[in-house]
């Protein structure tokens, strides 16, 4: 069974959001998602300052099997992309919730946070 930490929020597209106290958030993909993708070889991430509305494609994860788009779980502006993932994309497989955060963002429409799922609701979709 895949892990679903209780302190994160989720989307039905298998992204997680770690909400910060200051209106920022970290975004990554779930254990379920990395397991389904298999060996991740590259993560295509946006530049700082890029702006996305909820549901926009903000990047892609390449695995040996397929490329999978990443969708913005909230409306946001990118503060930074995780520099570690360029040299070690397999962090996504090894530490989906820790080392493999993908982007850190400033949430520009807080109302979009309300639609995120909690851990129990996300687990129920798996």
């Amino acid at each position, binding site marked *: 069974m895949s892990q679903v930490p209780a302190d994160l929020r989720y989307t039905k597209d298998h992204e997680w959001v770690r909400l910060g106290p200051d209106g920022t958030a970290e975004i990554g993909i779930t254990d379920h998602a990395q397991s389904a993708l*298999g*060996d991740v*070889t*590259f993560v295509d991430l946006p530049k700082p300052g890029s702006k996305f509305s909820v549901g926009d494609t903000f990047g892609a994860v*390449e695995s040996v*099997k397929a490329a999978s788009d990443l969708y913005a779980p909230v409306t946001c502006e990118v503060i930074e992309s995780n520099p570690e993932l360029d040299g070690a994309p397999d962090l996504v497989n090894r530490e989906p919730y820790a080392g493999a955060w993908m982007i850190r963002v400033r949430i520009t429409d807080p109302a979009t946070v309300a639609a995120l799922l909690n851990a129990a609701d996300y687990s129920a979709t798996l």
Partner: protein
Amino acid sequence: MSEAPARTPLHPLHVELGARLVPFAGWEMPVQYTGIIEEHHAVRRAAGLFDVSHMGEARVRGDGALTLVERVMTNEMTSLRVGHARYSIMCQPDGGCVDDVIVYRLDDAEFLVCLNAANAAKDIAWLRTHAEGLDVEVVDECARWAQLALQGPCAEQILAKVADASLTPPRRFAFTTGKVAGESGCIVSRTGYTGAPGFEIYLPASSAMRAARALLEAGRPLGLLPAGLGARDSLRLEAGYPLYGHEISERISPIQAGLGWAVKFSKPDFVGREALRRQAEGGPPSSVIMFSLDDRRIARQGAAVYSGDLQVGEVLSGTQSPTVGKPIGTALVAAGHVADAALAVDIRGHRIPLSVAATPFVK
């Protein structure tokens, strides 16, 4: 296709080994066990054991058997000796591919044809259609056989642990028949779809579980891993082998796919001969190329290929090559642009230059 996918005789073993099972060509097949890259490297460095029981088989026998296979195969079969196999394509009259197959000569008037899973029913119907008027029987043996592919530099050593030395086929595309791991009625063929040395083993379906366990046990100390369809795809792409529905199809002929060596115009007649000869002489409208990218993004099937601002083709297959450490792939490119210096592929809005590869990435 809402029908539940079929299961191979090795399904319980896949479950036991923790495989990830996916639907493929009407079958529930393992795409990976431990990881595609690890399984890929195991085949290049030691060995991998694949369940390829989804592949189809047809037996062609009778006084007209040779006439039938010569009629439908692009490759030449009269000179094929008993105990040997040959790769061929079956073509439509317009030169498009019905399937690519391996033909085993079991006896003077008896052949076993190995078919792609997705095409097996179509192929058997095709063979029967062309058998009209001949004294020949086309027997559907898809359910009779399980198939294992034992591939890698240690394959021969592993086979020798579970079978008599006389069962090791002496050279590539030779085959033997006998007992594997005590299971009789097997065919051991020195063939494969990985670019690594190794064997494809046809077993009676009821023998498959015992034989697979014996091979895994014999091979584990040498580094053998069970390997899935994911690694099979990246291995075959590195080796430059076509996959039906990608590099060859009803719309891509063997001439376009660079398989002209398996099309023998010296034969007076076979289905598709005239169309293929016109392509071979006049040049086909488009050709399949192999490429690598100096990038981290992978060009997938359907990605557009450009020469300057002009779209001149599309990607047919693409993956990350574990052996060369780069994305590799194949593309269908319009005649006149195959040699363009500045071909590029569009991946999510990025134009990535293609490096055309003249030869496969392994061997």
